[in-house]
Structure formats: C-alpha cells, structure tokens
C-alpha cells in the first residue's frame, strides 16, 4: 500500500481540524470588537495560506514540466491547480460570510479580496483550457505556460488594486493576537496544510491513472 502515508496525512489533518475548530469555537475568547463573528478567522486565514501555498506549488510544478517534461509533473499540475481553485473558492465564500456582518456588505473591492477573485478565475480558466485540449502533451505544455503567466500576475493585481482602494484588515501577527486565538489558528493552519496535501496526493494518483489510460489508448489507436 504505497498510498498509505497520504491517508495518514489526511486523517491527521481531519483530527487536527476537529481539534482546532473546537478550540476556536469553544476555548478561544470572542473578539472585543467583532464578537463571535471573528471566529471564522480560524478557518479563513488557514484556508488563505493553504490556497496560496497550493497555487505557488502549481507554479513551480509548471516550471518542472517545462524543464523535465515527464508525465508525473503534468499530473501534479492538474492536481495542484484543481485543489488550489477549490481552496480559493472556499476562501472567497468564507470571506463573504465574514464581510456581511462586519463590513455590512457581501463584497468589497479590497486588494486581497479582488486579488483572490482574480487568482481563482485565472486558474479556473486554466482548468477549462485543459478540458478543451485533446492532445496530452500539448495540454500539459499549455497548462504550464498559462499557469506561469497567471501566477506572475498575482503581485501586480495586488498592487494595482491596493492603489485603487483599500479596506481590508491589516494582517494580524501572533504579537497582536491573544494566546488561545493563536493556538487555534496555528492548529488549523497545519490541519488545512495536511488536508490540502492529502487532496493533492489523491488527485495526483487519479490524474496519473487517467493519463496512463489515455496514453495506452493513443498507442492502441
């Protein structure tokens, strides 16, 4: 069973996520200004980290395909982009739920918000591109090129929107946050990281299996 380690990581992630969420909902005190609404931060901020990390991984994997060109890299591309888009969509949904009671609106044109939306749309477009290309080698190269081009855009989008307008909270650091809050945040950060790793690993195996079947079909034809 060579995929046992990834299930272990997944289980560990689930357990940590349960513990971190309990800690965030029950143990940590409510925020002075925002009250209980702030508790969404314990899943929102770790989701943001995990999403950004997964898409950064996708960027390096894309370079890996262009340099190496072995199918393993392409399966990793597919896995990390898909998981990154799902995490990004979750991130935006959580942010909206938090923004409504806090800012009074579902959506605001804040730099981080807008950048995540652009990032998710850009990478979702790449997933669409994958489904429109039949030749596997071409599909892999085009995905890699589009992923690099989209990823490079992230800092530029961020700065352009920041100049345009800003409202988002300043990032919190462990010094400005109460101890029980930090603990819940840290636990969930690892939980989300493990869960993302598990999802990418599962998705990678699926992509590899499909790729092998596709190549076998092409050889038979």
């Amino acid at each position, binding site marked *: 069973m060579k995929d046992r380690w990834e299930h272990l990581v997944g289980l560990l992630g689930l357990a940590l996520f349960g513990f971190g969420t309990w800690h965030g909902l029950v143990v940590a005190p409510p925020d002075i200004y925002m009250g209980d609404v702030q508790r969404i931060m314990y899943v929102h901020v770790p989701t943001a980290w995990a999403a950004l990390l997964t898409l950064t991984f996708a960027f390096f994997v894309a370079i890996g395909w262009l340099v190496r060109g072995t199918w393993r890299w392409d399966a990793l591309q597919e896995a990390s982009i898909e998981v990154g888009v799902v995490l990004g969509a979750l991130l935006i949904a959580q942010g909206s739920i938090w923004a409504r009671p806090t800012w009074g609106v579902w959506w605001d044109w804040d730099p981080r918000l807008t950048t995540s939306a*652009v990032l998710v749309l850009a990478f979702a477009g790449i997933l669409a591109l994958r489904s429109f290309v039949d030749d596997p080698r071409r599909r892999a190269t085009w995905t890699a090129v*589009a992923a690099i081009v989209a990823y490079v855009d992230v800092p*530029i989008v961020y700065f352009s929107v920041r100049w345009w307008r800003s409202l988002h909270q300043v990032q919190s650091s462990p010094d400005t946050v109460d101890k029980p809050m930090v603990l819940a945040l840290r636990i969930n950060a690892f939980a989300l990281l493990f869960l993302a790793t598990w999802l990418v690993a599962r998705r990678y195996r699926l992509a590899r299996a499909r790729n092998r079947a596709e190549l076998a079909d092409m050889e038979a034809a």
Partner: protein
Amino acid sequence: MELLYQCLIVLRKDLLQQWRARARLAAVVAFGLTTLLLFSFANGPDTTMLRLNAAGYLWLALLLSSTLSLGESFRVETQNGALEGLLLLPTDPRAIYYGKALGNLVVLTGLGLALIPVMVALYDVAIPMGVPRLAGVIALGSAGLVAPGTLYAALSTRARGSDVLLPLLLFPLVVPALLSSVKATALILTGDPMNQLASWLGLLTAFNLIYWSLCGLLFGRVVED
C-alpha cells in the same frame, strides 16, 4: 539584430494580411462602435454619469473588441497549416511572437484612436490634457492587452471552444492593465490636479515590460508542442 529583422518581416506579413482582409477589420471597428453605443443604454441618458464613466466604457469596448482581433490574427494562421509553414522557416519563434504582437498592437491602437471621436460625441467629454497624450495611453494600454493576448490567442485558436477560451483566460489576467489604463484615461479626460497620472503609467509600463518579455519567452513552447 537578426531577431529584430525577422520580427519586422513577420509584422510586415501580418499588416499586409490585415490590409487585404480589410472587411474583417471594418467589422471589428463596427463592433467597437456598437459596444460604445450600448454602454450609453446601460447607463441611461444621464450625461454627467456618461462623462464620468467614459474612460471605463472606452477600455471595455477595446477589451471586448480585442478578443475578436486577437482571435482572428491566429485563425488565419491555422488555415492551410500556415503556422507550421512559418515554423519550418529558419526563424526564431520569438520573432513570430513579437511580429504578431506588434501587428495586433497596431490594429488595437488604431481601433482605440478611431473610437476617440465617437466617445467625445456620444459621452460629451472634453480632453483637457490633449489628444496626443490620450493616444499615448491608448497605445500603452493596448500593448498591455496584446502581450498576453497574443500568447493566449495562439493556444485558444488551436483548441476546441476557442471563442470561450480566449476571454476566459485573458480577462482575469489583464485586470491590472485595464485598471491602470482606465485610471490614466480618466485623469486625461477630467484633469489631473493630484499628479497621479505618472504612477498609473508606471504601473502600466511595468505590466508591459513583464508580459512582453515573459510571453516572448514562453511562446516557443506553445507553438512547437
């Protein structure tokens, strides 16, 4: 030097092609004009609002038209294996990219210039900072749309569902270019008392530098595979 020479040859070929198919070019211009007209209907006949949003409407019209002209520039290459023929010649693929991107830039800037008088007439805007400056911003902004647009057109026209794919890939990507072009154009149309124009143009230039070099680098991989 050799690269520049090859690039100019590709540009010359592209412009000649565009000229011979001027009916198609006229269709793109007509599309841009129609879009400008439609924005006034979306907004209602409030002249103050129209004047305020003129820069945004102009750039949206240009962006929407660009998907037509960019797609067209590669559709002609897919006929009769023209692109394969071009690649068989001892040319650097970068020369093909820069030549075609410059060709697209000429077309899009031309369209933008053609839209200026219509924008002035429909939205009743003044241009206090002068038409040459506005033309400069249009050229720079078009360059920002064209650089990733040419690369993506090269992929999307050779995939299934190319009509959906190009806007899907291009629109999120050009957000910074669009934002800074709209801001710069709005400042030129309404005056710039706070001296903000330079920073927006700086951002637009940075976007251009990054994407003109990155896409030129990656284009070879796109067409050779």
